[in-house]
Each structure stands twice: as structure tokens, then as C-alpha cells.
């Protein structure tokens, strides 16, 4: 019998072209996703070198980072943003690349579009000039962010030079408590292992909690692998994966579907396979989690206190002092009841249909606290359409959220959606870096979608379980 292997090893071997002179692997990238920010320079390099796109059918484009979420007609008010969208359109036309544009009804954050279209499939390699490409690992793909020179390499050769990663298996066993979501699971993992804990690793997430998650929840987890330093994170494909993919535009059909399903079942990690490291976490130990600092590992449970320089080990003092100064939080004080200025709901982490559906259950009948600016940004035009059909958009609008059109929006503030001054934002996004949401002094507190809705209603960081009197899964008193 063949030696048992994990999914990462199997996918890596199937996509290895050769060993390069420096010892790295030339790895075939089966699926390449591009957007307007990190691709134009790559096309420029391609032209400078007189090269063509090697497999134009294996690159897919959309526009997400710079698009306004309110006024969508071109030309955009911002001439720089307008130049970027024009450049992307020109490059796609010239090189014959499929482009899900603003008029397609399929535009959205690149990490939403791949899964929605069924382009993201198990056992594949996926690269994109965006670190949150790890999202696609939810399907059992090896998916990671690349730089722009590598975007050029993929366009020209469909390959990149890369060193093999180690694999860490992260088991989360047991059952999550009421009001604890996929976002809390990944924030807890990052808090536990640190923001550089994943350097050199791919994370394989397994155990009861991930087995029971929907595909959208799995995407939330894999999305933030990079925040823990892991270039990619994945979950072995199972019936949940296949059910999500069946019937999507780019998913195999008929006999090809049956064959693909067999391949996908075989690509999952074998029982007894080797891992370079194993970490075990109990679901019962995870509570709703919020960040207090300036990286996603600086996180605490909602009922914990903000750290103080005195309480932390010597090697963390400088980082804690810097974070506390930026966040203007009182050391040793509870994080709960900290006033917020803005609530941001969206991003490739939590801008999916189930995020809006779950939050709307609690939001209905409530109003956003006076003085809080609340914006809801569906991750894709398809999510936007489905929310409209289900009346979800009305729930958000009636509560006082601004309901916007699809894009990355205030997750990284490359479009007009930005924090002002030192506003504090309760955010469903993935990064709380200094300046991330568009104002150098802006403050970001990461949390789950239901926690953001709770904060929007109360005007302060709150325990959603208390605000909504959550008694059990989905039950509201």
C-alpha cells in the first residue's frame, strides 16, 4: 500500500513541473485570479519582455479593491481608480482573459467570485496577487497570495518558483457555544499560535468543528490563515464541498462531475498521514473574540480585559505599549462598553450570504445607535442580489445601515469608504493594522458579523450573547 500522504503533499506533487537550479520547485498554478491593483504592473512587465499569456483560459479577472460602493458609473470620480479599471479591462481584452466586470452581475471580491462560479475546486493550485487567496483552501485547494512579479510569472508560464511548505494540522474538537462563530475560531487560533506562528507552514484545519461548518464558514477560517503567518490554509474536501460546487457554472457536469468527485475524494489527506506539527484546541474554550490591538493576534474574549504593559512578558511590552497608544484603550479595563464610531460589515472574510442572513436575524427590529455610521457591503453582486430577493437588504436599511454595492470597501479603504481621524470601527474584516481602514489614526476592532451588529445597535463593543439574549443556536429570547 502506498505511503499515506496529506492533501498538501498530493497537490504539490501533482503540480510540480521540475526542480529549479536553486532547489525551489517550479509549481504549476492551475487557476490564476487577478484584480486591478496587483496585475497592471505584471502586464506591463509581460509587454516589456515581449511575452504572451501562456494559458489565457486559466486566468480569471474581476474588479474589487478600488470600486466605489455607492456611485458606480464610469468614469469614477477618482481619476486614479478610473485609470486602474480601464487598464484591467484593456489587459483582459488584449490577452483574452475572462473578466467578471461591473456589468456582469458576477463582479465581487475576487475570493467570492472564484467559489461562486465554481472556479475554485478541490485538489487544485490557486494563486492571486492578494494574500487572502488562502480563502480558497476551504475547498481543499492549495491557494496562496503572490507578488506582482509572480503574477507575471503565472501569466507567462502558468508556474511560479516556490519552496515547499510544512503542514500543521489544527484540530478543533467539540461543539462551539451559542454566539460563537467561525470568525471567533480563527481569531482564537491566531491568538493562540501568534501572527508569525504559521511562518513556513500550510495549515490543515480538521476536527468536529470544521466538519460541521458550511462552506462559507470554512472560507472565513481559511481566509485569515495568512493573518497567522501561514501562506495557505485548507480543509479536506467532503460532501459539504461537493454539494456547494454541484451545478455552479464552472463545475464539471454529467460524467465529468462523477469523475471529478472521485478525484476530489482521493485528494483528501489519508488516514495516518504525516504532519510536521499538530495542534489541538477545544471548541468549548472559545468565546466571542475581539481584537484590542494593531494586529489580528492581539485579541481577547469579549469578557476579558485589555492587557497592560505591566501584565505582559518582557518581550511583549513594547508591542503592547505601541498598540495601546494607537488604540487609545485603557490598560486593564474591560474591552466591553468601548464606544464605537463606525460599524463595517463586509469583506472577503465576512461578506457572504450566510453572514448577512445570520446577522439579519438579530438585527431585525433594532436601530443603529444615533451617531454610529454603519455600512453593509455585500462581497459580490450575487450576494447583493440574493440579499435583495430575501429582503435582507431591507432589514439592514431599516435598522439604519447604509446598504452598498459589492467590493472590498472599508476593509482596506482603497475606494472612497474610509475612517476619518481616530474613529473606532467595529469591523467584520481581517486586519486591524494601523491605518488599514484609510485613516492613519483610525482604529479597527475585528469581530464576528453578529458582534458587529450588536456593536452598531448599542454604540459600543458588546457581547452579542447578552444584547440578543442568545440562549442556544439561533434562539433569541
Amino acid at each position, binding site marked *: 500500500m502506498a505511503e499515506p500522504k496529506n492533501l498538501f503533499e498530493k497537490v504539490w506533487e501533482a503540480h510540480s513541473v521540475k526542480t529549479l537550479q536553486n532547489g525551489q520547485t517550479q509549481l*504549476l498554478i492551475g487557476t490564476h485570479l487577478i484584480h486591478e491593483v496587483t496585475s497592471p504592473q505584471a502586464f506591463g512587465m509581460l509587454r516589456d519582455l515581449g511575452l504572451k499569456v501562456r494559458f489565457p483560459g486559466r486566468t480569471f479577472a474581476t474588479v474589487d479593491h478600488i470600486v466605489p460602493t455607492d456611485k458606480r458609473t464610469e468614469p469614477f470620480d477618482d481619476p486614479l481608480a478610473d485609470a486602474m479599471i480601464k487598464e484591467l479591462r484593456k489587459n483582459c481584452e488584449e490577452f483574452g482573459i475572462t473578466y467578471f466586470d461591473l456589468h456582469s452581475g458576477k463582479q465581487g471580491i475576487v475570493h467570492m467570485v472564484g467559489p461562486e462560479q465554481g472556479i475554485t475546486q478541490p485538489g487544485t493550485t490557486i494563486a492571486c496577487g492578494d494574500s487572502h487567496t488562502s480563502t480558497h483552501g476551504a475547498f481543499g485547494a492549495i491557494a496562496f497570495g503572490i507578488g506582482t512579479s509572480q503574477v507575471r510569472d503565472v501569466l507567462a508560464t502558468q508556474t511560479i518558483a516556490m*519552496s515547499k511548505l510544512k503542514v500543521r494540522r489544527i484540530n478543533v474538537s467539540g461543539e462551539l457555544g451559542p454566539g460563537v462563530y467561525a470568525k471567533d475560531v480563527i481569531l482564537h487560533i491566531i491568538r493562540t499560535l501568534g501572527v*508569525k506562528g504559521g*511562518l513556513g507552514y500550510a495549515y490543515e484545519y480538521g476536527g468536529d468543528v470544521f466538519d460541521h461548518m458550511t462552506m462559507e464558514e470554512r472560507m472565513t477560517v481559511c481566509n485569515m490563515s*495568512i493573518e497567522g*503567518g501561514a501562506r495557505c490554509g485548507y480543509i479536506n474536501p467532503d460532501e459539504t464541498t461537493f454539494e456547494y460546487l454541484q451545478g455552479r457554472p464552472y463545475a464539471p457536469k454529467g460524467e465529468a462531475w462523477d469523475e471529478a468527485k472521485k478525484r476530489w475524494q482521493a485528494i483528501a489527506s489519508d488516514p495516518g498521514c504525516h504532519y510536521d506539527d499538530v495542534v489541538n484546541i477545544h471548541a468549548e474554550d472559545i468565546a466571542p473574540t475581539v481584537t484590542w490591538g494593531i494586529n489580528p493576534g492581539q485579541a481577547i474574549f469579549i469578557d476579558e480585559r485589555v492587557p497592560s504593559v505591566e501584565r505582559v512578558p518582557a518581550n511583549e511590552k513594547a508591542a503592547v505599549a505601541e498598540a495601546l497608544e494607537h488604540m487609545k484603550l485603557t490598560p486593564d479595563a474591560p474591552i466591553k462598553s468601548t464606544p464605537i464610531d463606525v460599524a463595517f460589515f463586509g469583506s472577503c472574510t465576512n461578506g457572504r450570504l450566510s453572514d448577512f442572513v445570520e446577522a439579519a436575524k438579530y438585527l431585525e427590529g433594532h436601530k443603529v445607535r444615533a451617531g454610529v455610521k454603519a455600512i453593509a457591503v455585500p462581497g459580490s453582486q450575487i450576494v447583493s442580489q440574493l440579499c435583495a430577493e430575501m429582503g435582507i437588504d431591507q432589514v439592514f436599511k431599516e435598522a439604519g445601515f447604509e446598504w452598498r454595492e459589492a467590493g472590498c470597501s472599508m476593509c482596506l479603504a482603497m475606494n472612497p469608504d474610509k475612517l476619518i481621524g481616530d474613529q473606532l470601527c467595529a469591523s467584520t474584516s481581517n*486586519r486591524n493594522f494601523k491605518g488599514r481602514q484609510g485613516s492613519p489614526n483610525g482604529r479597527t476592532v475585528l469581530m464576528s458579523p453578529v458582534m458587529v451588529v450588536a456593536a452598531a445597535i448599542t454604540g459600543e463593543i458588546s457581547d452579542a450573547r447578552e444584547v440578543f439574549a442568545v440562549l442556544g443556536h439561533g434562539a433569541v429570547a
Partner: protein
Amino acid sequence: MALAKITSISGKAVYIPGDDIDTDRIIPARFMKCVTFDGLGEYMFYDVRFNEDGSEKAHPLNDPRFAKASILIADSNFGCGSSREHAPQAMYRYGIRAVIAESFAEIFYGNSITLGMPCISTGKEQIQEIAALIQEKPETELVIDLENERLNFGDKSIAISISPTAKDALVQGRWDPIVELLDADKEISATAAGLPYLAN
């Protein structure tokens, strides 16, 4: 496309303290609204160097003593977060030719090597020693000997490390892999032919 063999780098250094310096810090997203990397150099570390009114903040990069630095010294997990190549591109265009830190985030590391900008690791104590030295004597010339993995300054020499693959790429003058990748066209076709999902 012949590339220079990068075997040693020398220059003055500047120390930017702090663990986990992310690529949003190195180049804030608003400066990425561009279709080429030209001109990014002036925005490197913009928000930590300048106030919103454009006036300078107290920062090592605004200190005239470090104005000519071409080697950046940092702490651990430098370059984490976004995959944006705009970060090492901005640093290279500013004039940085090497980074020495305790550790690096992976995507940043690879992006930098592909530009021919080595990322070199050494211990926490060594970083502190270099930082203290350049604070005292900013004119100190550091010499990075990549082949022998040593950092030399004055009469001192300390051990540094670089991944074997990056070292080979730099020292042998193949840090931009595009030529070698293009050369494997037949092997690429063969590998692709073995993957059913690429058949459509």
C-alpha cells in the same frame, strides 16, 4: 536577461524598531492606486514619517543622519500582512538594497528576493547590537558578505543567514526566475496534461 550576481552589499543602515511591521505600514493602500511601480519610493512608510498635513514626524527615516541608508534593520516578522509587492518595490525605489531582521513574513521575503533585494536573518541580540552601533555611529558602513553569510563592520564580524534557495538565486545571478520558468515549456505542457481540470 543577464542578472547581476549579488554576492555582497555594503552601505549605511537605518533601524526601524518593532515586531510585525506589516506591508500596509510600509506602503499604505491609498498609494497603490497606480498602474506602474514608478514613484512609489517617496511613499515608503509614509504614515509613520509624515503627519496628515505633510509635516515630518520624528522617525529614523526623517533623521538626516540616516538619510543615505541603504540597509534596513528591523525586528521580527517584518513584512507581514498583504502580499503587495508595492512594499519591497517602494523600499527598493527609495534606495534600500538589503533588509536585516530577526525574521520575515514569507510573501514579502519572496517578493524581495525576486527584486534582488536580500532579506537576511540574524539573532535578536545581534539586531540590538547593530541598532545600538548605528545609533551611536550612523556613518558605520555595513558589509553583507552573502557568500560566507557574515555581516562585517569596523573590526567586527557576525553570523547572518539566508535561505539556501535565496542565497543561490542571488549569488548565481538568477534571482528573477522568469528565464528558467520559461525554459521549461515542454515540462509545463506535460504537467498540465496530467491534470484533468486544465483540459477545459
